[in-house]
């Protein structure tokens, strides 16, 4: 398949999403519009004709569950192999574990929590076109949090960490600087030699690393082998490669030479002269200035390219890596990015399964979803919320901006706002929840009121 292999990093039971994920529901199986979040990635890949996948899951149990679900849902459609890695090895560790399975020239690494319609082919094509070592997908992060509620300080923090500080060349194709995670807060340090080589560096803070990477396989394996302290792709491997693009250590080992030969390329010496003479891969000032600088051909070999593909603003791209993101994505998938959900919407712009039962004077607003077998009593109101399968909801219940998973019982007179309610939760009468997350199987006693609290079974 174009000499690409695909690795989906599905994660395990992420602690960040604490009350939502559990042993029974690993992160990859969290429902987004009543479908596991992993299905969005798998279907995105399937639509690009990528049908041979390796899914890496943290933890044996989680791997079993994810594997079980995949084999049920994608029989005859995808050829998926699930690998289990120990927990807390990080993304880099997860890749290390499956590195010996990788044989293709390039590897496409996709995070399992990505909900997007950016074609992976675009990233792969950019990668190939530039002959890059790594290409990352950058996208404009979707609007976070409901606009009507005042965003608290905690949300602000979440918002910030979703963005990256990204340095690009004038053509916006080469990735020259990337700061991830905690580094964002610090001062930006731009390397002088890179700046000199490009002439102009554009620093942007409105782009998010979508965690879809195309790596040159040999380089990736090399970095993972050499730097065994690297824990995360996003925070270690990618910044490392970007940092060292002008004094590449990976190619210093004669690795490039071997590659070139293996590719059936001309011998490296000839290749360099051709490159400089005919500027085979010289779109921007970058290459020219590289050629300019008084380097010997050997030095010229010791550079590699890091590229970025910037998805257009019309594409949806989000990662489910926080609770806020979870409710955002759920909202968007039935809202503005409704083509992702794969459901057909009714004329009221909502999805109500025919088997769902609604009491009298109950209204389900637009951008809502009511899955099969759910029952609602009288005089209920549902706005911009997703309700899972086989829920039983009493009368006079108001659900706004919330996600209710499967088999939830909500008794009369409850008010649920901006909350996430996991499976098998029981809300007794007149419970008021605002911005809460209720873990699976929790029972909220009648009349209680909670605000901005995660609740879970001990």
């Amino acid at each position, binding site marked *: 398949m174009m000499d690409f292999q695909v690795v989906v990093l599905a994660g395990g039971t992420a602690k960040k999403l604490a009350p939502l994920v559990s042993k029974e529901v690993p992160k990859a199986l969290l429902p987004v519009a009543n479908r596991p979040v992993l299905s969005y990635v798998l279907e995105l890949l399937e639509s690009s*004709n990528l049908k041979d996948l390796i899914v890496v899951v943290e933890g044996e149990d989680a791997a079993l569950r994810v594997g079980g679900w995949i084999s049920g849902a994608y029989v005859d459609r995808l050829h998926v192999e699930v690998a289990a890695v120990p927990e807390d090895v990080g993304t880099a560790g997860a890749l290390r574990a499956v590195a010996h399975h990788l044989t293709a020239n390039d590897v496409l690494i996709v995070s399992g929590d990505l909900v997007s319609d950016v074609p992976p082919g675009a990233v792969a094509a950019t990668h190939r076109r530039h002959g890059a070592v790594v290409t990352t997908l950058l996208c404009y992060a979707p609007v976070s949090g409901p606009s009507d509620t005042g965003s608290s300080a905690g949300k602000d923090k979440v918002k910030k960490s979703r963005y990256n500080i990204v340095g690009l060349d004038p053509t916006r194709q080469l990735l020259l600087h990337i700061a991830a995670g905690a580094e964002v807060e610090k001062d930006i340090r731009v390397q002088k030699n890179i700046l000199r080589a490009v002439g102009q560096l554009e620093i942007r803070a409105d782009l998010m690393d979508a965690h879809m990477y195309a790596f040159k396989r040999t380089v990736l394996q090399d970095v993972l082998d050499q730097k065994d302290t690297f824990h995360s792709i996003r925070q270690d491997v990618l910044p490392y490669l970007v940092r060292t693009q002008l004094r590449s250590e990976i190619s210093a080992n004669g690795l490039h030479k071997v590659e070139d030969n293996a590719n*059936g390329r001309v011998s490296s010496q*000839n290749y360099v002269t051709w490159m400089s003479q005919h500027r085979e891969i010289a779109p921007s000032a970058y290459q020219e200035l590289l050629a300019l600088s008084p380097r010997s051909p050997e030095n010229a070999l010791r550079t590699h390219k890091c590229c970025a593909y910037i998805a257009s603003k019309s594409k949806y791209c989000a990662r489910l890596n926080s609770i806020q993101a979870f409710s955002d994505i759920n909202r968007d998938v039935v809202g503005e990015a409704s083509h992702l959900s794969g459901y057909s919407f009714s004329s009221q712009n909502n999805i109500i399964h025919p088997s769902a039962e609604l009491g009298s004077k109950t209204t389900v607003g637009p951008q809502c979803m009511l899955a099969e077998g759910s029952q609602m009593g009288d005089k209920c109101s549902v706005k911009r919320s997703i309700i899972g399968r086989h829920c039983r909801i009493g009368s006079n219940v108001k659900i706004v901006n919330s996600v209710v998973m499967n088999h939830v019982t909500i008794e009369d007179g409850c008010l649920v706002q901006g909350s996430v309610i996991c499976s098998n939760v029981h809300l007794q009468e007149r419970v008021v929840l605002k911005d809460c997350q209720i873990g699976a199987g929790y029972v909220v006693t009648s009349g209680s009121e909670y605000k901005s609290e995660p609740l879970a079974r001990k």
Partner: protein
Amino acid sequence: MDLRRAPRTVIDPKVRQVGFVTPGAAPPPARSHSVATDACSTSPPAPDLSLPGSSISPVMIPPPRHASADGLSSLTRPAAAVHVPASPLRHDTVQIPIGSYNPSEILLGSSPMISPSSRLDAGSEFSDEVPTSAWLSRRGSGKFASSFPASSGEMMAMKTTGGGGGGNTPKSSLTTASVVKTLPGVSEKDGGALIEMQNEGTSKPQKQKTSKAERRAIQEAQRAAKAAAKEAGGVKPSASSGGAIPALKQGKVVKHSPQKKDGPQVTAPVTTSEKKVVDRLPEKDRKKDVPHPRMQFDDKHRVEKAKRRAVVNQSEARNRVELFRHLPQYIHGTQLPDLESKFFQLDPMHPSVCKVGLQYLSGDISGGNARCIAMLLAFKEAIGDYTTPPEKALVRDLTAKISSYVSFLIECRPLSISMGNAIRFLKNRIAKLPHTLSESEAKSSLQSDIDRFINEKIVIADKVIVRHAVTKIRDGDVLLTYGSSSVVEMIFLYAHELGKHFRVVVVDSRPNLEGQALLRRLVAKGLNCTYTHINAISYIMHEVTRVFLGASSVLSNGTVYSRVGTACVAMAAHAFQVPVLICCEAYKFHERVQLDSICSNELGDPDVISMVPGRKYLNHLDNWADNENLQLLNLTYDATPSDYVSMIITDYGMLPPTSVPVIVREYRREHLWI
């Protein structure tokens, strides 16, 4: 044409000393222009060679060298006795009628301008290159293949051990969660289905077409029948009219039936097949005569057909320029994202071909040589990965494969003439493969052929051109170049290394501004440069002593087909009596004759014309496509008439534009190694 010719001959200076002429020699008997060109273009090669002594033969060709030793021998051949004219080309007084040459120009192919010592080091330079290429060809594909089975075997082994991998070792096992039931090669099957689908798609219009032909056949048959009826059966119906009678009957039936398109197919299969055979044969003959027509994009049927086959989704521009309707005019900027998003669906393409296509489309690779090399290297890789499917012949299947790659590349960007030549060469090599070769031998022989082509026809040719051209640069010269030509750049750099003192004027034009990159590189190497845009050409031409230009192709009437603007520069230079030297590798020569740049050209993105870099406020032409009365045209190439070209520097030496047909005729076989 005559109108254009007449004044030009008046302007034409009779001064043309281009390196073949010994200064003291007496002018040969004058001949008229037309006679000379006739002799060049139409006379078969035999008479020229049979009259070696006569002074009429315009150019004598050195005996064709052996192909394999080509690159080396051209350099190591003993120095010829041609004296290089030291006088400046510009103020020459020797008058020679155009189109005829001094007998002493004989050594056209071997006019080496280098001193023996420099040639020696040239030889050594090449000698270290030759072994590398030899080493290249030796390197088999075994290396490649060996790594894969081993790892896959490992994978299998891991699979069988089951899910006990976790623990402390980072290596983990894969458990297959879901397998597609159609086991061997899902993707292949899908691809097959796709192709079938496409075939179905394409077969439909054919049905339409046949029905059309049928209708015509029926009409003709009816007419014939009518004529026969008028003659009242006096004459016996000939065999053909006898065949037409059943057609007539069936035709009548068809006429009554309401559905026009599908009806005749069912009712009159016999007649159509007969008629088809009759129709097809002369068409085929005609096709043999015509040298492969280029796609005319105002031919709606063919465009429709091509579109259905196309991989790249192209939408036609709204405001098409009427005069250039025969050229593809697409909306630019939509193709690249579209192709990128379909990257994984381009399965039948080899990845490296795909990569090159993307690079063409995005403009990452531009320039004739770079494009040609990139394409050949991609083909080389594709050939390396090629395996002949069962029950197919390598020669045929590989040719078809290459053709499909080529059509993909054409969709990304129209081929340049040099690439066409290279493709012809490759196909020829495939066709000429001895049947005794095994698959791997055939592949490696093709790969080494490609390497040889790149090395001899491009890399070494460039070096030879540089060495020739450097002799034309003297201290104090002001050299002008236009755009960015790789050969011209090499010439300047080489001359600079030789310690010649000269100044370079880089003339550039919007929208590509390739000259800026050239300027940057030249300045970095310490050359004294002036940069200007083409609108200042007549101003700057006063100080220029020589013009060096690159070319995309040189056509057999001496027309230089090159980056748009070249013709303008050449004309200005001509008006100022500045010699124009075109540097072009001989593999870019083409036997086509072209008089203008309209019939064959490439259209660039019209939007880039309206944008002025650094002047964002100049947005008067925003949304110009909405205005139906406005069409923007961004031509890529233009044709410089040979009258404005003083000399063409090629790997066979320096020659006047009138000798191009000789090179094309004499070296064609050698070029393509036919």
